[in-house]
């Protein structure tokens, strides 16, 4: 089964769960007699979702076309699947998750610099003489623009350094 059919299975399960959530939604006492309920639209959506995912799951596969969609750039060439470098992508995702968890406790400047250095290393960069100052400068410039120019609070240093 191809990936897009698996996605259809995902949508089917999601629509069922969403529909279950909608049907079992607990209405407030005074809401019961109203025409339009909080779960009116969700129940409809779930039904449409289930119908569409069945269509996606069982409809015959149409001819390949070259057209691309709205604002999304280009398409994926699945024939070159084996050339794709997934290892690096997973490395980057791991770095992003660590960054997301670290940004609050250790502050914006420190975590951002570390994130930029680590993710460039994952991509194969080894010239740390250039990389470290560029990362630090990037983090500091953004912090300066956000905090000092725009006035949005962004704690730069670890939480224990600033009371």
């Amino acid at each position, binding site marked *: 089964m191809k990936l897009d059919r698996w996605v259809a299975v995902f949508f089917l399960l999601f629509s069922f769960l969403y529909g279950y959530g909608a049907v079992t939604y607990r209405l407030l006492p005074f809401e019961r007699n109203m025409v339009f309920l909080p779960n009116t639209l969700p129940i409809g959506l779930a039904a449409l979702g289930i119908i569409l995912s069945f269509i996606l799951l069982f409809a015959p596969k149409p001819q390949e076309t070259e057209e*691309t969609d709205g604002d999304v750039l280009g398409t994926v060439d699945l024939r070159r699947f084996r050339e794709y470098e997934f290892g690096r992508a997973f490395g980057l995702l791991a770095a992003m998750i660590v960054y997301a968890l670290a940004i609050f406790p250790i502050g914006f400047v420190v975590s951002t610099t570390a994130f930029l250095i680590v993710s460039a290393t994952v991509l194969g960069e080894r010239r740390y003489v250039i990389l470290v100052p560029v990362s630090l400068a990037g983090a500091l410039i953004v912090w300066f623009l956000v905090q000092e120019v725009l006035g949005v609070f962004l704690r730069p240093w670890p939480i224990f350094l600033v009371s």
Partner: protein
Amino acid sequence: MLDGLLLGLGAALSFQNLLMVMAGVLIGTFIGMLPGLGPISIIAIMIPVAIKIGDPSAALILLAGVYYGAIFGGSTSSILINAPGVAGTVATSFDGYPMARQGKAGKALTIAAISSFAGGTIGALLLLTFAPALSSVAILFWSAEYFALMVVGLTAIAAFAGTGQVAKALMMTIFGVMLSTVGESSLFNAPRFTLGLLDLQSGLGFVTLAMALFALPEALFLVIDRKRGGEPGGDAQKIKDLRITAKEARTIAPVIGRQSLQGFFIGVLPGAGATIASFLGYAVERNIASADEQKEFGRGSIKGLAAPETANNAACTGSFVPLLTLGIPGSGTTAILLGALIALNVDPGPRLMIDRPEIFWSVIISMYIGNLILLVLNLPLIPYIAKLLAVPRNYLIPFILFFAMSGVYIGQNNATELLLLIGIGVFATIMRFADYPLAPLLIGFILGQMMEDNFGRAMRNADGLSFIWERPMTLGLLTLAVVLVFLPTWRAHRARRRPENVEQD
């Protein structure tokens, strides 16, 4: 109308707003050149800045400038290294890149700049003419019609999706609407579908969703697929001879004329937008060209370059018509702009022109000024602009990811939002692999909330569903929506029944 025009001229020509246009165009051009950051991502990055400005017209002017700049910047990287940074400029690379390889990069960039300018300018004039008319029709709209209009907007996306993509586009739209029901809503008293998570109480952030759907997958794709970014350097260096001859000007003038009109009206349709306008523009010009000229297409034809460039800028302007007059975003980009407007306490729609004429008109005027500045700034900058493309991907990708994440984190200081960003980003990447379009999801998410609000209000007013058949305009619009859903399927069905005679060129 003249009063409004003067009001807008006064507002747009204020020092602050001129500065905004210039800043927006410059930022858009430079970031738009980077592969992976299309107008959607750039505008999403700029939204916290725009909201911070506070003044809605200045903010919208800034974002409109960014939008234009990004489209032009995308053309630059399409032409120089065959790496379209923006989907709307993919067609530009068909003939622009061959020109650059023949050592005519300077000429190609000049044609791109002039065509963009002409397309945007004629688009702005058309906007000036047609927007008020469309707006006065729109004032007749009640909640019921609005609901129907939202349904049309949502289904139009599917109608313009490629063959075999209709069901996928519809599924993504519905998924987007489902996501929009998470959290609190203005109609009800309790949050829905939060799974007990406090962070979902206020719903998903649309910047988070926009970043996760566009910037993140693109950056991941640049990592996964080494060939995607194109090779920096190479032929890009040969930028000389910017001038075009009088003969060339005569050749492209009719193309620019036709494509400005066509691009604008495609842009007006919800769901179409710059990408489709540029592909259609290219296709139409190729079909009506003489046999000799047709052979040139794909090998460095100036017509083939001018057509998509004119059309995409005209369509960008056109897509502001439904946004400003009806409050319906025609594309993912205008959907983000709509979100920004709502965050700035502006309610786009038919009342905008009456309640806040200064916003309405100054945006239109500043579009024209933005085009002018785009031309004036970019012609002399063309040789230098190319240098930015030499940023190595080992630096480019980490910075794209960093910008995407800081765009979500700044102002909220909420790590859960970042984890959501990563999770949805991975989901979106899988969707790209499975060939599911992502723009409908975002449009569904943004229109979904408004659709439910209007649906609820219409149902409460009519005490049931009777408004559907009692109000002719609602019925008409909903019928249109049904037609839009089934038309592509019917057409595909008919094409399958007699496949042979269509294929011949």
